[in-house]
């Protein structure tokens, strides 16, 4: 699967995204976020960013949304366009 990071989260992580296999036992966007944050250090930004948002396959969803291998998952702070 592909995981993407945007804006202040991208800066905090020092990465715009990564290719990875769906980790064992991870079935939701929330579980994926927690799995990544468990790397510690800069990755704690995933649980410390206020009002973190996520998308699966380019649709904004909640942290209870299902994720499957092959999905494109994105994490980002609240949007500020317009």
């Amino acid at each position: 699967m592909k995981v993407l990071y945007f804006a202040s989260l991208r800066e905090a992580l020092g990465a715009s995204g990564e290719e990875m296999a769906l980790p064992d036992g991870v079935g939701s966007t929330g579980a994926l976020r927690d799995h990544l944050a468990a790397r510690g250090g800069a990755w704690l930004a995933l649980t410390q960013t206020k009002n973190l948002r996520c998308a699966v396959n380019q649709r904004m969803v909640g942290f209870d949304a299902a994720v499957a291998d092959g999905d494109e998952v994105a994490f980002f702070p609240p949007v500020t366009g317009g």
Partner: protein
Amino acid sequence: MSVSVQQADFDVGAEIAALTAGDAQAGAVASFVGLVRSDKVGAGGPAVQAMTLEHYPGMTEQALEDIVTQARGRWDLLGVRVIHRVGRLLPGERIVFVAVASGHRHDAFAACEFIMDYLKTQAPFWKNEETPAGGRWVDARESDAAALGRWRREE
């Protein structure tokens, strides 16, 4: 094409005119232009020298198309145009343009404001301001979430 995400500027007058060209039913066009303000950093703070718009390519266009589809489902619209710029922009430059053509003005106004309110909270764009003190990511505004709530109550 009703939605564009682009670095380039656009011609507001031409876009508004194109939306109703040859349509005998079009009596009303409501439109909105959002601009880069240079006074955005709080009282006494540094002025904004430029703004960089980051986005999520692919999702951005889809989110905007979804918003337009929702607007077309709620009101009787004859044409919709959304343009959002990305990349580095200077104070006074246009960021976003929404125009809606309809038979009557209330549908046009309501749909145009609805699209802007949804775009502000649902479309994946992020603003980074350059100031003499360095870059800063613009915070999301509570008032934008509140504006969205108005439309949801009316559903």
